[in-house]
Structure formats: C-alpha cells, structure tokens
C-alpha cells in the first residue's frame, strides 16, 4: 500500500468532508440575518446547526493536522504562503464560532443582532476564502525552490481564485438553504425553499464557468486529457439534478445531490493537483509532491494505524449525532437551546 497516496487521499477526504459539512453550516450562517426576521426565527436557524457546527469544523482541523503529520513541507508552504488569507479565515471562524454560543445570552436586540451579523460575516468570509484557496491550489501559485511562496495576498485574488470563491459562496448558500428546508417549518421553511429555488441556477452557471475556466487556468487538460473533465462534470450534473429535485420539492434528494456536487468539485481540485501538493507557477521543478513533501515511511505507518482505528469510530459517532437530532426545529422559544 502506497502510504503517500493513502495520506493524500485521507487529507482530501477531510477537506472534502469539511466543505460539505461546514458548507451547510456556512450557508445557514450566511442566510441567518435574512431568513430570520425576528428573534425566534433567528434562534430556530441557529439551532438547526447548533449540535453540529463545532464537530463539522473539526474536519478542517483534522485536515490541517494530517497535512502537518504526513506532508510537513506542504503544511509549511501552504500555511505560511497563504498567510493573510488564513489569518482572515481564522478571524472569520473565531467570530462565527463564538456567535452561536454568545448570541442568546443577553436579551438586548443590539447584542443579538451584532452576533447574528458576526455569524453572517464569518460564514461568508470563510466560504469565500476556502473557495479561493482551493482554486489557487489547483491552478498553482508562485513557489520557489525552497518551497516558499513568493506571491502576495492579492496574488490569490486572481480571476480563477475569485471565481472559485464566488462559486463556493453560492454553492454553500444553496446547500444551507436546503438544510434549512429540511430542518425548519413555517415562514423560515418557505423562505429557505424560495432561496433554494432561486439560487440553484446561478450556482449551476457559476459551476459551469468554473469548469470551463479550469481548462484554461489549470493543467488538467495537459495532465489528464478530456478524461479530466469527468469529475467536474459529475459535479455539474449533480447540481443540475439538485435543481430537478428542488422543483419537485424532494428536498432530501436535492440536499444529497448538492452535497455530492460540492464533494465532486473539491475532489476535482485534488485530482488536478495529484501527485503534487503545491503546484509552482514559477517552475514545475519547484512543485512539492506527495513524495518530496512527505514524512518518512515510519511516521506514515504510525499515523495510518491510528487513522485506521479511529476514523470509522469517529464517523460512527458523528452519524449517531446527526441521527439523534434529525427532527425539525419548532419555533417554540422555550424549547430552543441556543
């Protein structure tokens, strides 16, 4: 078993899982101030993701930790290279994270409104930055012979990066709307359904644009030929199917298709990268690969054993948590936890 490939896949798995799970968390956060027109409605919205958002965020932390352990040179290059973007991401995650816990802790409208907008801003920024980051990973960034990034913050905000960011925001808002359609009732549900109906076509268009742009801004075509289009097309088809299910009000299927679409889109990024982990636009020889950036075989063996034991266990108890809280949230203030 090639442990370098295995760990590339495991890391991809956690990043993809993060984008889907926190995808709907961020989407719900983005929609919060708009779909919740009074305090109870906003509380309902926050309570839909209340039990889950923290554990969902851990998928990103695990992805980062796994990157550090399995590919320390990638971790070093990526995290120092994307410094200011990551600082903004951290700022966003901090504000959003505490907003849920703090929001209902005083009765003052100004306080509650502030934290709701903090959740919005944090979720929006995070969704945008993650899209920008993945687009740049796929297209490559200036990296020198020592693996150090030589660009600036603005380098990341190139057209392809921004398109990735925009698609991410739109896609996550869509899946957030679908999640709310599954988990709420009454006015909030109707608003969420309406958002999903109106948003799916823009998402499809953005995703299609991203797919086309991918052929110009990444070396997918050169590397994998037309076969490289398969996974991105799967993403597009999934989103189109989601639109069909939204029309038919089969929200569960719409949600599943959108999730699959997000997963396929993020997976495409990793397919484009493989076997590289940091693509250098300065010189292909400077790109880091799953072999040159990796820890030694002994470390990979150790963490593989830990992963094999714990990942199934983690997936099981997370699934149980979703099962436990599968009911719709009722708009009854005394019963709301957050």
């Amino acid at each position, binding site marked *: 078993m090639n442990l370098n490939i295995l760990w590339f896949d495991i890391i991809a798995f956690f990043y993809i899982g993060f984008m889907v799970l926190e995808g709907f968390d961020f989407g719900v956060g983005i929609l919060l101030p708009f779909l919740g027109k009074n*305090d109870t409605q906003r509380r309902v919205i926050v309570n839909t993701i209340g039990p889950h958002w923290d554990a969902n965020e851990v998928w990103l932390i695990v992805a980062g930790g796994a990157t550090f352990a399995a590919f320390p040179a990638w*971790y070093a290059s990526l995290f120092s290279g994307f410094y200011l973007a990551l600082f903004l991401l951290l700022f966003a995650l901090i504000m959003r994270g505490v907003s849920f816990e703090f929001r209902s802790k005083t009765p003052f409208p100004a306080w509650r409104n502030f934290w709701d907008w903090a959740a919005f801003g944090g979720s929006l920024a995070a969704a945008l930055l993650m899209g920008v980051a993945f687009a740049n990973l796929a297209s490559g960034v200036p990296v020198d012979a020592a693996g150090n990034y030589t660009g600036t913050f603005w380098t990341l905000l190139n057209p392809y990066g921004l398109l990735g960011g925009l698609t991410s925001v739109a896609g996550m808002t869509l899946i957030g709307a679908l999640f709310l359609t599954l988990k709420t009732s009454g006015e909030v549900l109707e608003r969420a359904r309406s958002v999903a109906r109106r948003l799916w076509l823009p998402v499809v268009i953005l995703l299609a644009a991203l797919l086309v742009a991918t052929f110009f801004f990444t070396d997918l075509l050169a590397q994998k030929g037309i076969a490289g289009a398969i996974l991105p097309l799967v993403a597009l088809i999934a989103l189109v199917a989601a639109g069909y299910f939204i029309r038919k009000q089969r929200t569960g299927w719409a949600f599943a298709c959108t999730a699959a679409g997000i997963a396929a889109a993020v997976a495409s990024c990793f397919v484009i990268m493989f076997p590289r982990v940091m693509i250098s636009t300065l010189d292909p020889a400077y790109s880091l690969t799953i072999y040159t950036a990796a820890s030694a075989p002994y470390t990979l063996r150790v963490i593989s054993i830990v992963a094999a034991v*714990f990942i199934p266990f983690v997936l099981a108890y997370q699934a149980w948590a979703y099962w436990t809280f599968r009911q719709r949230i009722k708009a009854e203030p005394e019963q709301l936890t957050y």
Partner: protein
Amino acid sequence: MDPVMLSRWQFAITTVYHFFFVPLTLGLAWFVAILETTYVISGKEIYKKLTKFWGKLFLINFAMGVVTGIVMEFQFGMNWADYSRFVGDVFGAPLAIETLTAFFLESTFLGIWIFGWDRLPKALHAGAFWMVVLGSSLSALWILLANGFMQHPVGYEIVGGRAVLADFGALMSNPRGWYFFWHTIAAGLATGAFFMLGISAYHLFRKREVEAFRTSFYLAAIVGLISSVAVGLVGHAQGVYLREVQPMAAAASEALWETADPAPFTVVAIFDSTGKKEVWGIHVPYLLSMLYYNVPSGKVDGINNIQAEYEALYGPGDYIPVVALPFWTFRIMVGLGLVMIAVASFAVYMRYKKWPEKLHRWLKWGPLMIALPYLANTAGWILTETGRQPWIVHGLLRTEHGGSPSLTGGMVLISLIGFALIYALLMGVDVYLLAKYARAGISSGGEGAASPEPSDEYDFTGAGK
C-alpha cells in the same frame, strides 16, 4: 520589523490567551460530569440544577477555548514554516492524533450534551459529558507530549537535515511530556475548583441558594486542596527532572550563574539591564541542593558553565535565556500555588467547622481567589517556554531559525494586531457573560442555554412578522 520577533510575540500572546481558557475547561469538565453523574444515580433535582448552572458557565468558556485553539494549530505552519519543515515528521503526528481522537470526541459529544437534555436517557446524556472530559484530557496529553518533544527531543533521528521519527514509543513515553500532562491536569482541576469556590462563596456570602452552593463549595474546596498539593508535588518532580535534561532552563529558573555544590536558593534577585547578571539577591544556603537531591549537598550546574559547555557542543552563540523571565515566573507560580493551598485549606476548614458565623465575612474574598490559578497558569506557561530559549527544539533548532521565510514584518504586524484586538474584545465579552451568569445563580439559570428572556418583539427588519 523582524517577522520572527513579531511572530514570537504573536505566539506568546495567542498561547497565553488560549491557555487562559483551557485549564478551566480541563478542570470544570470533571466537576460538571461528577455533578451530573450524582444526579443520575441519586435522582435529586438539586444536582441537575447544579449541573446546568456550572455547565452553562463551562460552555461560555469552552467556546473561547475552541476558537483560540484553532489559531494555535494553524500558527505552526503560518509563522514557523521552517520549524514545521524541520520537525513535522515527529511533531506533526501527536498533533494530528490529537485532532482525530480528542477534538472530534469533545466537540461531537458536547454538541450532543448541549442539545440532548430531553432527547437522551439520563445515563447516556451524562455519558456524553464524560466523553467531553475524556476528549479534553486526551487533547492535553497529545499536545503536551508534542511540547515535551520540543523541550527534550526523544525517539528521533536526523535524516537529510530534518528530524525524523524513529521510535513512536519513545515519543509517547517521554517523561518530560508526562510530567507536563499530570501537572497541567492538576492545574486544570485547581482552576476549576477555585472558579467554583469563588462563585459559591459569592452566593454564600449573600446567603443565597445556600444548600446548592454549600455543596459546590465543599466539592470545590476538597478538589482544590488536593489538586493544589498535587500540582506542587508533580511540579517538584518535574523540576528535579528538568535539571537532568535541560540544565540551562533549570539554572535560569533559579538564576544560578556559577556551578555550586552545595547550591544556594535565590529567593528574590535584581538583574542588570541585560537580564544576564545579578545585581542583588537574597540567598538561602544549601536549599537548592536540598530541593534537587533531598540532602544539603549536590552539584548544580550554573548558567555560565553550561553556556561554555554548549559553545563547545553546539558552536559559538548565546545559549542563555532571558533569566529574569523564568526566574520571576517560577517564583510567582510557586508563590501563588502556596497561597492556593492555604486558601483551599481554609475553605475545607470552614466546611469542617460547619460554617461558623464568625468566619462568614471571609467568604467575601472568595471571588478574588478565582484569579490565583489563572495567574499561576500563565506564569507557569511563560516559565516553561522562555526557559527553553534560545531553542525551539532543544539542542536541535534555535527559535530564530524556525520562522517562515515568506513572511514580511508587515504581514505579521497585521495578524498580531488583529489577534490582539479581537482577543481583547472577546475577553471582555467572555468575562461579562461569566460574571452575569455566575451572579444570576442557579434558579434563574433555568432550562437550556439561552437567556431567560426570549423575545418575539425583536424585529430586525423593522417590517414586523
């Protein structure tokens, strides 16, 4: 502006900040778990109310621990890329394991606990919180084993100019890491205990909800006394071990400049402007040797002698930390620890004497005592990380060589100021909320985590329902 120097300040600030919230999480978790388990077993409502009261305070604090913690994981890669490249093969593994085993556990089960009061059977709900206790303790273990490696590298080989893991068992059994762990767990329990003690004292002084807060007070006093003593005992063992594996850090924490046998203990000292020479001090003869060897004799290496040794071993350079920092933080930490033992003893005595009226007025000082473990924790952390200098990995990599080459001073200044500002704001919010809910007491805590005043009048659009 040097990006490495700014990165050092940022790491120090963000770590001290993170470790402000973590010990309370570590300690208070046990109390909440014990209170809820007592409820499940005894069926007495008072324990359910206590669980919810202390649980609410736990959650406010936990949120801060989580968000400040994410910053730590990212910061190694962001600000210390060359360190990460050098040591990632060894250091990355415990961090990754921490995220996979501990973080998932505590965050998933805490979510279940917060929202699952009426949805899970009582025993299962309590069990969920025990998973939070397990998760947070495991988290402490892995990160402290990682830090243990930085202080006292074991189980590695240098291959191709970087450290490579050679023996995972050695990494996991590093005594430096285990001393850290037990010391931190004890400190966490002490922090939780004093937090509980101070808030209980606040209510008892005002004779409010006496039965509930006497129960809390007593539990906190006992745990506070045991954990304060334990943290000192483990700390002492750790100090003895430190002299063996990091003699410079040990010597610096005692400001022992020249090798001595027997060695005197310096109670207080004033250093010159370089921080590397003593101008005046109060010394107790034989005492340092006694602390290290249990007898009034025994050689203790001095800073200047170790410096000469290290120059021979590692080449020319300055291997002396800023002595004033470990020296003073050590004394502050130990001094506070002794005060904590005294306070906890007094609290136990109060309960033992069944709350004599003549001691009632002392309860007024309870809330102030909450600060003791916080100050001690901060001092201890600063002690250990400044004592380690100039190394980022002892004997292998200097801190100044561990930075991120792609950073400019301007970039780090932005993040440093950004973190400082947001953390200051959140600290204010956190303390405000903790004080508000602590003061409100148990009966107004009520069900759920939200403010007891939900309101449909709060129309955020001005357009009505």
